């Protein structure tokens, strides 16, 4: 979408977006529009290894939108479409803002979940990288979480329709509570 819009139209447009977002927040049994990814830094191969969990129905719907045809996740043809979809929606940029190369590893599909495995090559390391995650953005209220681990360092990024790109910064793994004073 063009990011520049002018005058009244601009304002009206945002209000309408907002309006749609809430009118559709229904369906009390399935508000589970979430994805979850575990990403681990492999210092040996200098790659970020990602295991991404999605709702299989949502993924099938996304592939249908992308390819304009119905693709069963279990079919062989699904793999190429999934990779194409991931390259559009799950992007890692290195510290020089260049897209890291995505290598497909495989998938596991069950009734409850679809796990997708892929990795990003980052020869310059993990510092100052950023992630864009807009998987399943066709689903209203979608929340995408990425848990990143590098040895003892770990961080969690939460993406939403309001924020699809985030820098990777590590936080302490200790809980944020009062300090311990041993008796």
């Amino acid at each position, binding site marked *: *979408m063009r*990011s520049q819009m002018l005058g009244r139209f601009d304002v009206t447009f*945002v209000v*309408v*977006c*907002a*309006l*749609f*977002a*809430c*009118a*559709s*927040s*229904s*369906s*009390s*049994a*399935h*508000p*589970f*529009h*979430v994805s*979850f990814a*575990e990403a*681990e830094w492999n210092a040996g191969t200098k790659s970020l*290894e*990602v*295991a991404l*969990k999605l709702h*299989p*129905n949502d993924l099938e719907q996304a592939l249908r*939108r992308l390819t304009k045809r119905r693709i*069963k996740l279990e079919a062989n043809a699904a793999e190429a479409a999934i990779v194409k979809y991931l390259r559009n929606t799950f992007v890692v940029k290195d510290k020089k803002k260049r897209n890291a190369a995505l290598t497909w*590893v*495989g998938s596991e599909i069950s*009734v*409850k979940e679809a*796990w997708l*495995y892929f*990795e990003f090559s980052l020869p310059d390391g993990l510092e100052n990288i950023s992630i864009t995650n*807009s998987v399943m*953005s*066709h689903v209203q*209220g979608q*929340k995408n*979480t990425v*848990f990143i681990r590098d040895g003892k360092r770990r961080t*969690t990024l*939460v993406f939403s*329709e*309001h*924020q*699809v790109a985030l820098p990777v910064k590590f936080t302490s*793994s*200790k*809980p944020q*509570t*009062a300090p*311990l*004073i041993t008796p």
Partner: protein
Amino acid sequence: MKTPIHPNTQLLFALLSCFAFCSINAQVRNPKYGQADSFRQLDEILPTPTEARLASGAPGPKYWQQRANYEIDVELNDEDQTLTGRETITYQNVSPHTLTYLWLQLDANIFSPTSDSSLTATAPSLDRISTTALQRLQARHAFDGSVQITEVSDSKKQPLKYTIVKTMMRIDLPAPLRSGETFVFSVAWNYKINNSKVVPARTGYEYFEDDGNYLYEIAHWFPRMAAYTDYTGWQHKQFLGRGEFTLELGDYLLRITVPNDHIVASSGVLLNPDQVLTDAQRERLEAAKEAGKPVFVVTPEEAAANESNKPTGKKTWIFKADNVRDVAFASSRKFIWDAQQHSVEGKDVMAMSYYPKEGEPLWSRYSTHAIIHTLNVYSRYTFTYPYPVAISVNGPVGGMEYPMICFNGPRPEDDKTYSKRTKYGLISVIIHEVGHNYFPMIVNSDERQWTWMDEGINTFLQYLSEQEWEENYPSRRGRPKDIVQYMRSTRQVPIMTNSESILQFGNNAYAKPATALNILRESILGRELFDFAFKEFATRWEFKRPTPSDFFRTMEDASGVDLDWFWRGWFYGTEHTDIGISNLRLYTLESPDPDVEKTEKKKERDAEPETLSTKRDKPLPKRVDQFPELKDFYNDFDKLDVTEIDRKNFKEFMEKLDDDEKQLLNENRNFYVVDLENLGGLVMPVIFDIQFDDDTHEELRIPAEIWRHNNRRVSKLIITSKPIAKLTLDPHLETADVDRENNHWPPQIVKSRFKLFKDKKGKNDMQKARGDEDEDKQ
């Protein structure tokens, strides 16, 4: 000496303390200890008990709740998809208070372009928006489905003054309504029904292009009494889209007028089958009472014939629904209808499903069975299902619940095949939505305030029901290991957050409370205690309105277990379980016999490695060797040599011991001290699998109270007769521990999901098959 503190530092300190206090949610910090007391009673948090809501969690002698009876005439216009209605409400003021005005909900006003729901929603990311979403935006912009009120009058047809406040309406009473009095008034209204394709919601119509017909699922469609309560007065928080409905119970008489070729499904019992059903349909409905399996009341063939019909007039379907807090209905000429009467704990219930041909073959196979299964399981854990019918309808709404009726979305593919996911998705959503009859339709909780009280409790029972449908049913939520990813995530708020302010809605209000209750049942109280207390809660509050404190108090009162720490951690906090083994130390008893003990110590000393210098210094000539006169007693004395005094002391010691003490000495016990760290902050039971040297196992289950003096670090003594080879924390994955890497001694690397997958991938299918052959040969 006391160091003076600069005033600015004092201020900063005060601010920081305040921040620390606020950040450790729902915890009272002890400044001289530095830890919040995880086991402190919820005194500051729970409301003070009253004679209406007792300290035991039961409704008290002064409990009251209002009642509203409705008589509604409504007409559905299939030509322009509008709804026009007129209702007479009989409102009974059971409260001890005098009321001067009444509040009603006008939920359809959420479809006004200027509703709060629209105006307060924040902008989506416009960088990426799908074309379908754009189409919906445009269609939604043109649609105004708000309610037009055409009449508000008293029983003498005199107009009443009313004020519309967005999704609420206040009616000013002509005279104060005293305790025990009744007020009768009427409201007439109309509105445009939303097209679910472009304005998806909990209600709406679906248009089928192939045959040109409509299917309506109609909900929150009439002005409904807002609840007036003892704990919050009028519950008139605006309907913003998340917090669903808070309503009064009452009896309903519905007259629903539709085109005369429509089939109507509604909350309640059909009072005029003679006028709306054919003779054959009435006979089949009668047959469904004894059939023992679902029977078609409208067959697929009849529905197909109806689809090509044009109506020749109108028909009015009359339904009576008693003791319900709401009514909803569905109408279409496309409906196939099946029914089976079932005895739920001795009470006859007609279970019925309505669906268009697009739902087949899935719906006739599973829907009615799923309804009956739900009633059986839920009634066992709560109370006998009290209503005469239970209905599941397929239409445009994905999944939504109303008394006696619910709307469920899943359908097979166009070619009539369906995936395993669709099948289980359908069974699960029907169990969930039929299950809502118990929570919040009958246990009438305040949905606008607390989503978890119906969604969380219902999702918990849904999990139990699914596991009784078939072995290893693929339940999506309920198991502790399935909540780990959410528990670990940031941007979380406690379960006890208002419905409209919840982040990560589904995980917060459905999955986390369902998992918490599952953990409470399996790992903390045990099934027997939990089930007794849970049933007590359900029966105490059947047809009444509990608040969270009534639930927390009843569960403790009936189980006999103090659970304040559990509610505090799981419902009022956002900490997670991450318990780790930081160290394991072994202590053994020294033998009092100097011949044993000193010999052992000598062995240990001799086993100590020589330092490099000692080794290199050894060949150097020593002065004492050159001049032996320099050697004295100390050159030869070894303190680990057994002396006569040692032996004498041992003899005296043994003589003083009795037989039991002597046996204890001979038992050769190992004393292990395991150091545990609570890294996640949530206090939880500590469950160990102890593996011994000889490969035998023992399970040690320690209640969460082990953390009561120090909720960060504790040490536990484990006495064993055999040496420990391995310790594993949370061996059955029952505590939702988010990091399993620190759950082992000796430490064990837990492979990431990615690595596990890559390992599995190492062999291709042909190699795996070859491997199987090799194994067979062995």
